[in-house]
């Protein structure tokens, strides 16, 4: 068995070698070369993190002691390993996809630069995840942020891209600053920058400091995670990024934000206050709702997926928030469930969002447009891409047997179990947020029915969409891999949940994995509410409930506390999938049997008898989502840009023009007020420089006096 350190050394060596060798490789060979080295490095990462994740035994290494400051050190515990593993899962198919998709950049942009940035980003991300002290963490974080900016701005010829990149960089830096402040508050208390010292100093922290750390890190890291109200950069950056890079933004760097939040608020400074958890829960729910509303009404495939990332980030945050509250209320088991749900959703979102972005990128590449109003009918021209996109869409809609279902179901279950909390106010917040998330789930279905139906079904609504051809093997392989992952994570959650619970065990304060896991599967020593008889009852019906997981089992059981009514919610995605497959197979067989002697006539769609059905007679994406726009008018607040009628000879209408503009809620409520306030301030300051020399001397004198006064006072 290879040592984890050796795996990581190989990984960093590969990245380093790649960066050094990149300038020597000819441009045209870069796509394949990058794909090779990127996927190999990802495999190495999977090996390294998998070992820690499954086998246990954290790996750590002191790197360098900076005299008088701190010791830089690396550490890979289960939490780091989990995020590294997810990063590997996304980097692997994306690297394979790069082999085909990068070719479109040949002769336009430097592929050497891309390879360097790509590998450097991979290394920086891993460094962020294994950094074990504040200094190296922030260093790696900065590197990652800057590399992200450079990659977002890769197609730098268009000013729109550069603007979006700058916005992203600026907000990221502000977020990083806030997060660093949060760390520093902890570090001051601990007198050290190293994580273990921070962890041990946490217990003595006062309420004010706890609030400060929570708010600073939550919103600081929330920038990367895409939480309302600090996410206005996200749709802009996602929509302009190269199609190779967007899956990484959504599937990897978004997770880093959550890694930061979890590392600080679960691992280093476990939550003892209820209110911050509620803040997280509410912010998460609002993010989810706002995200899905804008996703549903947006017709640009990439932007729509970006808004949907905000929605998923919201769901994850809501799960985390619930976990915080449960932790603070000393309900470690419930906290465990909530955190498991959040972590599971992080994994799932990475997988299906990467898949959907690959699909969207492929459609963009093959048709030249991402506007759903101009697409349509691609299922006949690009059947494999369509199938992969459909899997992703079903998964993100939280439909079984795919993975989104498991984590959203767990999240909602966790929220429902707030009934076990004592405070009525907290229960009400939970109930409202649960309702909000349920609405989100329903809107998500609308959103992705629209995305799939308008993109792939019906008739092509523009000439390029009618001439698209299927993409090449590299992309298909990577999409197939991710689609299989969606299915596997959905069907076999019982293999994943114990791993997640072990990951969380140190953070939630529950000593061993056993203490957390059994409530799902069996009555634990601490939780005797689940009667033994019931457990054995489950054994009898074949769903062996217990620790010794056998293949073919996939039962997720949650029980509601309370000695009086140990109601058991049981749901097995594995059996569900089996039954679904059986139904589909049976239907197919019956239909075949019934129709084997008949000739099947395939006719044109019924069109009401019109002479010829034209594409402009079919629903557009705008039309499909318009009911949502009308219902949530109060949130969208559209402004009418144009509403004119053109008439000739008094009565003959020749044109009716209508256009409405939607400014994003966050832009309207946060960005624009901040912007105008800043401009007002700048104008006020500008009044100070009106250029008289006497005044400038007076300013100097005044500031000198001020400093002196301050010095005297202190």
């Amino acid at each position, binding site marked *: 068995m290879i040592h984890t350190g050796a795996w990581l050394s190989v990984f960093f060596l590969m990245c380093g070698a790649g960066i050094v060798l990149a300038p020597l490789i000819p441009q045209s060979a870069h796509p394949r070369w990058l794909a090779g080295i990127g996927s190999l490095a990802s495999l190495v990462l999977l090996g390294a993190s998998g070992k820690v994740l499954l086998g246990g035994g954290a790996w750590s290494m002191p790197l360098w002691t900076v005299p008088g400051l701190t010791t830089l050190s690396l550490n890979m515990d289960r939490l780091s390993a989990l995020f590294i593993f997810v990063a590997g899962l996304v980097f692997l198919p994306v690297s394979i996809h790069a082999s085909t998709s990068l070719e479109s950049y040949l002769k336009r942009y430097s592929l050497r630069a891309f390879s360097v940035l790509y590998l450097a980003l991979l290394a920086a991300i891993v460094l962020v995840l294994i950094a074990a002290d504040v200094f190296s963490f922030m260093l790696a974080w900065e590197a990652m942020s800057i590399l992200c900016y450079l990659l977002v701005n890769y197609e730098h010829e268009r000013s729109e891209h550069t603007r979006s990149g700058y916005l992203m960089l600026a907000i990221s830096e502000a977020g990083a600053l806030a997060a660093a402040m949060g760390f520093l508050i902890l570090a001051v208390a601990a007198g050290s920058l190293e994580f273990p010292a921070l962890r041990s100093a946490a217990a003595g922290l006062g309420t004010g400091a706890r609030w400060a750390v929570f708010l600073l890190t939550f919103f600081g890291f929330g920038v990367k995670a895409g939480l309302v109200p600090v996410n206005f950069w996200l749709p802009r950056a996602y929509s302009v990024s190269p199609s190779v890079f967007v899956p990484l933004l959504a599937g990897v760097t978004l997770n880093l934000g959550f890694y930061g939040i979890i590392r600080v608020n679960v691992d280093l400074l476990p939550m003892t206050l209820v209110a911050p958890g509620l803040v997280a829960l509410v912010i998460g729910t609002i993010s989810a709702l706002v995200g899905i509303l804008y996703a549903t009404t947006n*017709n640009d495939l990439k932007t729509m997926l970006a808004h949907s990332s905000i929605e998923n980030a919201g769901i994850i945050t809501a799960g985390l928030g619930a976990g915080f509250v449960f932790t603070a209320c000393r309900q470690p088991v419930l906290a465990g469930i909530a955190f498991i749900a959040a972590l599971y959703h992080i994994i799932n979102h990475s997988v299906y969002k990467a898949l959907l972005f690959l699909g969207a990128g492929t459609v963009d590449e093959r048709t030249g447009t991402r506007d759903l*109003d101009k697409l349509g009918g691609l299922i006949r021209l690009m059947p494999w891409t369509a199938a992969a996109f459909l899997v992703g869409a079903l998964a993100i809609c939280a439909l079984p047997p795919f993975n989104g279902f498991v984590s959203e179901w767990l999240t909602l279950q966790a929220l429902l179990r707030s009934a076990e909390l004592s405070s009525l106010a907290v229960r009400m917040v939970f109930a409202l947020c649960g309702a909000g998330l349920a609405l989100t789930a329903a809107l998500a279905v609308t959103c992705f029915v629209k995305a799939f139906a308008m993109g792939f079904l019906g008739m092509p609504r523009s000439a390029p969409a009618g001439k698209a051809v299927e993409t090449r093997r590299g992309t298909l392989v990577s999409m197939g891999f991710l689609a299989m992952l969606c299915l596997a994570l959905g069907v076999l959650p019982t293999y994943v949940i114990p791993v997640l619970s072990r990951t969380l065990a140190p953070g939630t304060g529950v000593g061993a994995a056993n203490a957390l896991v059994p409530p799902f599967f069996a009555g634990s020593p601490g939780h005797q509410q689940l009667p033994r008889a019931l457990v054995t009852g489950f054994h009898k019906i074949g769903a062996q409930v217990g620790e010794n997981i056998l293949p073919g089992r996939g039962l997720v059981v949650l029980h509601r506390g309370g000695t009086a009514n140990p109601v058991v919610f049981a749901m097995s995605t594995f059996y569900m999938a089996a039954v679904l497959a059986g139904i589909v197979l049976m239907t197919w067989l019956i239909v075949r049997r019934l129709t084997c002697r008949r000739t099947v006539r395939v006719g044109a769609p019924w*069109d*009401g*008898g*019109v*002479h*010829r*059905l*034209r594409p*402009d*007679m*079919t*629903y*557009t*994406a*705008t*039309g*499909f*989502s*318009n*009911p949502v726009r*009308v219902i949530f008018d109060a949130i969208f607040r559209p402004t009418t840009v144009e509403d004119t009628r053109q008439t*000739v*000879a*008094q*009565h*003959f*209408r*020749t*044109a*009716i*023009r*209508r*256009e409405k503009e939607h400014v994003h809620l966050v832009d309207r409520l946060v960005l624009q007020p901040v912007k105008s306030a800043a401009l007002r301030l700048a104008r006020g300051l500008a009044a100070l420089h009106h250029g008289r020399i006497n005044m400038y001397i007076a300013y100097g004198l005044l500031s000198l006096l001020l400093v002196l006064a301050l010095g005297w006072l202190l």
Partner: protein
Amino acid sequence: MNSSDLSQQMAQRWHDQVRMHTEPQRSCCEMECPAGLLPEIARWLFAELDYSFAGLIVEEDPAQWALRYEFHRAREDAPVQVLVRRALDEKTFPSISDCVHAADWHEREAEDMFGLLFEGHPRLGDFILHDDVWPEGVEPMRHQFNAQRSVPERRPNPHWRLRRIVQAPGAFAMPIGPVFSGLAESVHFQLETVGEDVIRCVPRLFYKYRGIEKIAEGRSPEDVLLLAERFCATSAFAHALSFSQAMETIGGVAPPPRARRLRVFLAELERLRHHVAALEGICESTALTVAASQMALLQEELLRLGGALTGHRYLFGLLTPGGLRCDLEDGACRRAIAATRDILRRLRQLEKMLQFSSSFLDRLEEVGVVGTKDARTHGLVGPVARASGVVRDLRKVLPYCDYEAFTFETPMESEGDGYARLRILFAEAAQSASIMQQAGAALCAGPVHTPCPSRPGAALGWVEAPRGAAFCWLRISEDGQVARYRLMPPSFANWHGLHLATENFAFQDFPIILATFDLSVAENDR
């Protein structure tokens, strides 16, 4: 103002350019003017003198075109016919539809069927002959076109498409029909929408065009009567009456008094039945099933009443120029009146119940509003116009049969919405029942038929059909056959105005607007 006043004013304005002659036999006043003056005169009549536009009659004489623009106003004034003549090879005429917008579709029809061109009309092209079925250049109403032979070689333009005018991001055209919903007549609608709310709706008609005007040419008046009676069965009696009256004007005969009273009696029976059917349609469109069933019961009872009284449920085969084909028994008429009285009582009860059904009213009120000004410029007729404050009831304005002998009122509402149209239908149904009773009481003994000779000549026939003013122009040639039979039915006018009521509406209101507009495709697609 009578016709001499009119001619004085004309002479003052246009000196000798306009020639005017009244023909008492034809009961209308004809003013012939050069083509250039046409828009000016039309504007003068329509905008200043408050005349209504009834229709455009195009005739192809052997040597020249004769275009007659029909106007009518009040009881004292004869209908005015503005006549424009031009040589056959000059096919361009000025359009009057920017001022008299009611002429819009008449001009489009003339363009489609005769190949005439109307300068200033922006929307000529696909109308009666569908451009996705027929090539350009087919002019079926010309004399040389053989009505009996089908046109085998047809190469229509494959890229033809219905024009769309809404320009909004994501706008699309929702096609409805021609084959749609259970029992609708064949018509196509293009709803332009961005989802949810429909911005504009354009009907595409004439799927059922049967070329009545063309196939009538050269047939005997007896045969054309069959066509007049059968092109729109729901107002069959009205159109046959209009034809018969035109024949009687040409022949210079008047039907005997008993026939006139019976005609009024049956015409009002038809109106009552039609209005009940329209009310049933409205109740059905709002999914008020019990009310719709009750109305359906009434309608079937009225159909049976007609069947028992005349032998035919739709009153076919009864009218003939000069009177009626057979007499009706007085006893049967009395029984019919008694039955009508009962039906009216139940109708009133339903009206009261509907007025207290808020869910029903909610769906009708402020739906499909047509303003008074629009209703007038678009030349709407019948109950639809009366609901928008435009009252011009031919039974009062240009009385025929013995309508002036009966007392009745023409109801009027001004809101112009679906509920106003509903109230008009109820009020008119009550008036019809009252006229039936008066006519039944006024029945005198006597013959019901005077022989009506088929003389050469031309005349205008009109009738207030259940859906509004219906005009027809009949020309009998020297050999006693029909040379031109021009139909100007009320649905043609009202379909043209439908788009006024179908702008910016919620999709679920569409059936309701259609039902309250009470349109017949068969009557329009003659």
